């Protein structure tokens, strides 16, 4: 039985569908990506899961039954639009958040200080929130989300506004939660983060589900659609010295960091291309089949959808 099941959920604002017949299931112990462009309906969907908004139709099931108030205490939610009580002490804000999640005052006191210590904010517990930097405040928000040790963690755009150091910290936290067997729903439009962290994803565009499955399944399904009948082998990454784009059989070339991404003609096998490059006196440090980034799939799906809608 899935820990969280969304069944044909519909939500409209002013007659305009924000979420349209979306269904998916999420299991414990996985990081599940809820992906989509801005305004796709991700936050609306999450708000319905959190019972902040009610669906117009469809069902949201927790462990096979409609959610009840007590279920919310087992969920940690970091919304996209997030903030803190700026004029209060950090520890007081965490105390309020913790109590609202069913913790006792003593429990909050014990766990909040330890959690703040872990993210390097132990000494800031009794300082006012407005004395903290933006990055520090985001750490406090994450502490507040996880303080009550939730079984399900829903993170809506958790990397927004974070510097690389703090983004790394959030990634580590997500991976740690996964190791502990918790269910993490990660809503983001940053495909590289999703690719790095998620086991399965659902992609929503214009309120509708457009992709759903494991990353492996999705990439396999889209690679041919994106790269033609020759498949993924026809796109290679080459790092070295030489005018690779001038070689026969190279259809397109683009830079990817220090390397070149080349699309080869369908009849040109990659090993033949490698032989001709070496024969032409070019030096090659790295040569590999180019992976299909999720971002490419994302852009393809969204633009195809947009074209269909137009």
């Amino acid at each position, binding site marked *: 039985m899935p820990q969280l099941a969304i069944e044909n959920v519909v939500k409209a604002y002013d007659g305009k569908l924000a979420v349209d017949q979306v269904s998916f299931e999420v299991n414990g112990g996985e990081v599940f990506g809820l992906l989509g462009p801005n305004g796709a309906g991700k936050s609306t969907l999450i708000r319905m899961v959190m019972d902040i*908004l009610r669906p117009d139709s469809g069902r949201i099931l927790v462990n096979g039954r409609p959610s009840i108030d007590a279920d919310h205490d087992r969920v940690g939610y970091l919304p996209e639009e997030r903030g803190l009580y*700026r004029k209060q002490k950090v520890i007081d804000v965490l105390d309020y*958040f913790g109590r609202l999640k069913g913790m006792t005052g003593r429990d909050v006191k014990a766990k909040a200080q330890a959690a703040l210590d872990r993210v390097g904010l132990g000494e800031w517990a009794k300082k006012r929130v407005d004395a903290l930097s933006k990055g520090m405040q985001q750490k406090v928000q994450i502490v507040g989300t996880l303080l009550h040790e939730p079984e399900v963690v829903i993170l809506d755009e958790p990397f927004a506004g974070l510097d690389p150091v703090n983004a790394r910290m959030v990634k580590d936290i997500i991976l740690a939660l996964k190791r502990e067997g918790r269910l993490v729903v990660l809503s983001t439009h940053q495909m590289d983060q999703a690719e790095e962290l998620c086991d399965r994803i659902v992609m929503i565009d214009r309120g509708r589900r457009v992709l759903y499955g494991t990353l492996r399944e999705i990439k396999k399904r889209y690679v041919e659609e994106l790269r033609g009948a020759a498949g993924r082998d026809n796109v290679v990454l080459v790092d070295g010295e030489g005018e690779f784009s001038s070689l026969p059989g190279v259809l397109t070339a683009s830079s990817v960091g220090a390397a070149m991404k080349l699309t080869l003609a369908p009849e040109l096998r990659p090993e033949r291309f490698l032989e001709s490059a070496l024969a032409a006196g070019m030096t090659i440090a790295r040569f590999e089949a180019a992976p299909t980034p999720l971002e490419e799939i994302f852009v393809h799906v969204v633009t195809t959808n947009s074209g269909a809608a137009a």
Partner: protein
Amino acid sequence: MKGKTWIVVRREFLGTITRPGWLIGTFGMPIFVGLYAGLIFLIGSTAAKMDKPTGKAGVVDQAGIVRFEKGPVGMGEIPPEAQKAVNDALGMAGSSAGPASGVVKKLLAGTEFLPFPDEKAALAALEKKEIGAVYVIPADYVAAGKITAYNPSESFLSEGKLSQVPLRRLLVKSLAADRVEPDVVARILSPVDIKTLTKTKDGTWVERGLAEIVRRIGVPIAFTFLLLISILTSAGTLIQGVSEEKENRVIEVILSSIDARSLLLGKLLGLGAAGLLQLAIWLTMALLPAVLLIAGLALSPMIVILCLAYFVLAFLLYGTLITGTGVIGTNAKDMQQYGMFWSIGSAIPMVFLEVLLRDPHGTTARILSYFPLTSAVTMMIRIGSGGVSWWEIPLTLLILAASVWIALRFAARIFRTALLMYGKRPTIVEIFRWMRQA
């Protein structure tokens, strides 16, 4: 009530009563009023020392008509009940009123008029402060009616001003002496002592004293005033808090842990409790006058309990409506403006005060009693007047409680949706749609 509501109540209550603004308002207001009163007494005392009343005035009677009396001639026109109230008040104030109370007592006690042979002698006595004023009655007084007064002070409370009332009485008595019967003179000086009888609900006629009039009018006015103050201050604080939560983007985290109705109720109860505590502190700081007032007006404990019940329900109703409407605003200023529209409702019965006092059980009174926004104040006016049917009290309390429940349901729906909208002002159609949504 849910445990989470209590968490919100506790937080709002403690958060409010530890706020500097609340502490200054609660403890600073009585101190400020005390200092203000002290300053008035200080000025009064100083003035009293500088301009100490003698209780005497000199009369130069060139017309030869004045029949001087031994002892002071009273003020006469002040009703005995009011005179007693002033004396009681001065007695209660005791030594704290200082010499000022002595001045007022002496001025109200009347004036002793002393004859002087000429202006020079009278003015000399005035200069020595043996007398507070001099009146010269010319020879043609009876024909012309003119008198000259010498008054060294320009104060409206000077002997030269206040002794004019006893002088009139002295002149009436003097002119009427030997011409009119003494009891007729007494009637001329005090033509009426009206005893007013009013008809009660059961058809009997009863006398209404000053205390009853104060109870009928003063208690509802005080109730309305306190309700309005509480609504304006507490709902203002509530809206400010909610707008901060909206602007700080913290509201979504809160709404993911507690439903909107419980959150709204918790906030209202927390702030309401802080408001009641503030009133209790003010009353405690002025405990003696408050107890004396309640005892003096013969307010029964039941009226005090009912007052509290109507107060709490009316506060919750207005607080809910103000917050439910206020959240539609996109910022704190908008929120205050939208929400405070409702507070006018609590003052509506005061517009109909005359009608309600004239006919406390008529159609207007009943309509206003059963209309939730005006119910509390109207019922306080009617209960003060007496004769309200017993069933009307639980019925109106029930209407108010049901209104609070319904208002909470709809306000929570608006509250939940509006709080998640940032920077967009909803249309009326949208608001009604939110209210319909489950």
